[in-house]
């Protein structure tokens, strides 16, 4: 019987083995009038305060960035996630993602904003005591105080828990004295509050502290000379016997690394959302330029080679945006159900995100790579002007590059997301083993040629998607079987599996969004979305095939390899579309609208 209630809530990582119903995903077209108005107000803020002043921002005009943060604070943009009781707005997770999304087009400001509202504020929000929250959150939500986050050290980057910064308890037991060197600290130049990770004695794990600038003993190097986001303050910070009252310890001793990891989970999916605005802006600039620039007597937007780029950019953005808000809502739903079951709000928020840590890592990698793709093609569409600092693409290209590095490099995130999936399976939190065994059996059986009903709209695509998941289960299942815990040493294979998972998640999200949108608007009004969902699936199949092959030949031998290769072929079987026509259709729509219009 049809039921209108949500199907049983999906678990993190479960997308690999479960079919999701379109009605169960959230799509950006469902944002309310109020959320849209907030997004528009944020865009107005960028158009009014940042875009006309971008040179001032990127030349680091003294006081400019903190003043921007003040203005953002006055609009309420710094308190989106902070509960009303602490001077914020207490908005939903997906609303905070939407705001980060819009701010994504604001270059250096986007980093300053993320560092302040994300890694700077959230540790206190989620781990602070009542007193700490009362004391600091209202100041951070209003922008009166600016925050930064000091985890990375010269010798501790990806291996963050290896930091050497020390915290030594004073003789009277009143405070810790923190000593050490931190590096690459965003917002350091003007921060009033530092979240600092340090080690007490020879603890295995770090401890986190809330450090006020006024505690003293804090010095800094000059601003780093960077490739991009030049307007964002990035400095080395030195703590020299900085006295920090014991009550400023965040959470408990030795819990710092856990804080860092959990805050990074949120940071990752937020970064995913936080590049979307930049991606869309890149397409808008590109299509406008292509419509204006004439060569050989016509606008360059009339060339197939340019259309191909515009359509692929839009398609990848469409997919990453679909996936981001889908994951965001899954997280939000989980948070709500944990709160409903009696868990305190802050804890529920952390747990909700933690359970979708796989999706958070997927979004970080996918979105940051879509952004890099877009700015790269953006430069290309601008031709020589793309290389000129006079036009917007040059800065966009430089600014984009950091996204693949911070919040955990994309390599670390790829390794993590596969590792977490396997861990969840081993713990029995998601049943990968059953479906993986079934795929193993299917490999040695005769293919079912009767086929399923593929006549419905997007039914064929959903069938393809189902098979793609089997391809992943086949490769990952065999790799786990062969290597066991040693799989960790086979990073190349992990990278391939990660890519396959990422592509499936993105392709599925684009399909589900399209299906839901059709149910809302009807098929005729969703033609381009249908085209993009198909195009994305086409690209995903290609990539999954290539990555699957790379993984298989890296470890399977002899007959086993043959069987797996045949399996891969079967699971990636796809009656290709005329992608040229699909792309042209998407591109023509963009060209007519003269803006990213989805």
């Amino acid at each position, binding site marked *: 019987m049809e039921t209108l209630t949500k199907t049983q809530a999906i678990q993190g990582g479960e997308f690999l083995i479960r079919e999701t119903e379109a009605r169960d995903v959230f799509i950006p077209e469902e944002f309310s009038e*109020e959320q849209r*108005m*907030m997004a528009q107000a944020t865009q107005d803020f960028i158009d009014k305060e940042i875009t006309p002043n971008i040179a001032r921002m990127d030349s680091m005009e003294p006081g400019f960035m903190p003043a921007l943060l003040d203005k953002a604070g*006055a609009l*309420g*943009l710094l308190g*989106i996630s902070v509960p009303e009781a602490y001077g914020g707005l207490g908005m939903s997770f997906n609303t905070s993602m939407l705001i980060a999304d819009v701010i994504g087009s604001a270059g250096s400001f986007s980093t300053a904003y993320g560092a302040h509202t994300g890694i700077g504020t959230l540790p206190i929000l989620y781990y602070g005591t009542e007193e700490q929250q009362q004391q600091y959150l209202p100041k951070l939500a209003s922008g009166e105080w600016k925050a930064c986050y000091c985890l990375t050290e010269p010798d501790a980057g990806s291996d963050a828990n290896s930091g050497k910064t020390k915290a030594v308890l004073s003789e009277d037991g009143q405070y810790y004295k923190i000593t050490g060197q931190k590096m690459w600290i965003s917002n350091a130049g003007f921060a009033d509050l530092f979240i600092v990770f340090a080690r007490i004695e020879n603890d295995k794990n770090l401890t986190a502290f809330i450090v006020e600038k006024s505690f003293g003993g804090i010095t800094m190097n000059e601003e780093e000379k960077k490739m991009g986001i030049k307007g964002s303050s990035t400095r080395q910070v030195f703590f020299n016997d900085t006295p920090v009252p014991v009550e400023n310890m965040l959470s408990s001793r030795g819990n710092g690394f856990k804080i860092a990891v959990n805050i990074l989970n949120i940071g990752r999916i937020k970064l995913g959302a936080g590049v979307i605005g930049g991606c869309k802006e890149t397409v808008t600039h590109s299509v406008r330029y292509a419509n204006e620039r004439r060569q050989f007597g016509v606008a360059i937007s009339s060339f197939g080679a340019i259309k191909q780029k515009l359509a692929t950019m839009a398609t990848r953005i469409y997919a990453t945006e679909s996936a981001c808000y889908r994951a965001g809502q899954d997280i939000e739903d989980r948070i709500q159900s944990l709160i409903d079951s009696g868990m305190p709000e802050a804890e529920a928020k952390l747990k909700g995100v933690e359970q979708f840590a796989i999706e958070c890592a997927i979004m970080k990698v996918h979105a940051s790579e879509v952004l890099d793709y877009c700015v790269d093609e953006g430069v290309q569409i601008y031709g020589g002007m793309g290389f000129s600092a006079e036009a917007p693409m040059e800065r966009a290209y430089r600014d984009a590059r950091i996204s693949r590095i911070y919040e955990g490099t994309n390599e670390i995130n790829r390794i993590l997301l596969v590792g977490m999936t396997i861990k969840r399976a081993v713990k029995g939190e998601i049943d990968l083993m059953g479906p993986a065994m079934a795929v193993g059996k299917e490999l040695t059986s005769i293919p079912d040629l009767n086929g399923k009903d593929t006549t419905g709209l997007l039914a064929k695509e959903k069938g393809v998607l189902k098979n793609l998941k089997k391809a992943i289960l086949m490769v990952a299942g065999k790799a786990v079987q062969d290597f066991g815990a040693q799989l960790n040493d086979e990073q190349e294979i992990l990278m391939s599996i990660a890519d396959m998972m990422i592509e499936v998640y993105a392709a599925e999200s684009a399909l589900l969004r399209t299906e839901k949108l059709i149910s809302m608007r009807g098929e005729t009004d969703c033609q381009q979305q249908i085209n993009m969902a198909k195009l994305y699936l086409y690209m995903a199949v290609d990539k999954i095939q290539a990555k699957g092959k790379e993984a298989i030949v890296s470890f399977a031998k002899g007959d086993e390899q043959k069987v797996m290769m045949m399996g891969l072929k079967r699971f990636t079987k796809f009656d290709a579309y005329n992608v040229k026509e699909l792309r042209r259709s998407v591109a023509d729509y963009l060209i007519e*609208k003269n803006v990213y219009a989805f």
Partner: protein
Amino acid sequence: MKILVCITHVPDTTSKISFTDNNTKFNSNGVQYIIGPYDDYALARAVELKEQSGGSVTLLNVGGSETEPTLRKGLAIGADEAIRVNAEPTDAFFVAKQIAAVVKEGSYDLVLMGRESIDYNGGQVHGMVGELLNMPSVSPVMQLDLEGDTAKVAREIEGGKEYLELKLPLIAGCQEPIAEWKIPNMRGIMTARQKPLKVQEAVSDETMTSTLRYELPPPKSGVTLFQPDQIKELVDALKNEAKIL
């Protein structure tokens, strides 16, 4: 101090304009709507005046239910309540009649609106409302300050400014730099929904104009650049191609 701000619901300035029904109707398909930019200045000044000297700001729009998001944006910016006269704003006179009725009914001290809307750019409504109510009406106003029941106003005139002093009640068509346009803050957006938005029917259906058809300007043709040493070619082109010499 009771201030009424009349706002229009107009296509975003980057919208592509097209027509349907044999060029007799504007094609609103896919068009994004905003508060008229001049009205935005009027609203910003109204909110400032309220902050300085108290009182209330009421928004008014003549339009269908699709304009309500625009009204709610105005509420988010700082107006206290909104009125929507449920009717198509067919022409300036029709709209002026509706506004006049609302002003009379609510006895407002100050009626602010944009110098003109940016869709049809008529710029007539403030004058008509003034006539209908026998109140002074000034436009385009670039500066407006209140001292008791006196308004000190600066108006743009050809090549300069005119400074006026008027007794309230007063109608003003506003333009920049009367105030800096305001971005609604997040809290304002969250509270906008709780503010009253009253819908009332039109008081008359009298119009004075009817539209025969619309025409788009001819598409811009390309530009030919001449270097300083190409004077002869330039003159040539002006004579033979542009045929304006």
